[in-house]
């Protein structure tokens, strides 16, 4: 399966934990695309730094638009205002790290 890696930046007043980010993502994905859509995404948060609010997620390349839309639709994390921006997309983890997190 071809994959896409997305570098994220979480913007929030307080540091947000990995579990909260994952839960906000799944909730947004379920709201927008339902269980059937969510089953096609192959999402996983593979790296996350709560202090810097930076992270990397992986998804199926076919579901990239769904994942981006779900991430963009997040306006709250743990009932506190927040936003998540996609700062880079790549086909390999190495090039993403080089491109977005340098």
């Amino acid at each position, binding site marked *: 399966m071809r994959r896409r890696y997305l570098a994220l930046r979480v913007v929030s007043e307080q540091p947000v934990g990995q579990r909260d980010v994952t839960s906000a993502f799944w909730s947004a994905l379920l709201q927008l695309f339902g269980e059937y859509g969510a089953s096609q995404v192959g999402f996983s948060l593979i790296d996350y730094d709560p202090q810097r609010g930076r992270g990397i997620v992986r998804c199926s390349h076919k579901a990239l638009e769904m994942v*981006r*839309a779900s*991430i963009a639709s997040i306006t709250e994390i743990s009932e506190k205002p927040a*936003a998540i921006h996609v700062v880079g997309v790549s086909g390999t983890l190495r090039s993403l790290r080089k491109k977005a997190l340098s």
Partner: protein
Amino acid sequence: MRRFVDLHLRPSIKDLDQVENMVRKSSELGYRLVGVSLPPDIKRDEISQLQKICRDADTDLVTRADFIPETRRELLNDLRRFRRRFEVVSVVCTSKAVARQAAKDRRVDLLSFPSTDLRRRFFDDAEAELASKALSSLEIDMALLLSSKGFSRIRLLSRLREEAAIAKRFRVPVVISSGATNERLLRGPHDYASLASLFDMPPSLALRALSEDPLAMVERNRGKLSPDYVVEGVRVIRRKKGCLDA
């Protein structure tokens, strides 16, 4: 490389810190032109202040007025009084009569339907036909989509899908803007393009609605507001010595 445009930031103009934060954030997200919604009676020095903020953030300010007329007559008065002071004029269509007048008036650049109440969104075939002849565009504020939830978002998406299809059929340009009142509602252009896929707008069209279409509108209007503009297709390219300055 594409130049992305967000034509609708809605900060409180009195709060310059907020304006600065939003402009900076927009620049960081990749927008090179930002339109800030201004009150019609704004003073020149306030605009200069905003221009400085935008210059410092490496973006270009587009002055924009949003008219919310209740009647056709009110709209015509607003356009007569204020059109030449702003680079972009948007009309918030709160009634069918206002929507029709705005769509056929060439001085109007953007038609905005901010209501989530479906009966108050008047962008139908007739409206689109008028708009396509008058070169006005349909504006879609994404903040509305981000801030709605549940059933109201379902209804909004369904309506936006219909409006985007009508606009495509009648070749009315669509402009996707943030409509954000604070920086947390701002998203990058590619994120908006992904969100636009929720109402069946293909990514290529959505990216055009975030770059080429609004850019063409701003450039056309800047040309018209320039002292060298005479009529459509005619402009002064050089002044002879001894001629009166415009």
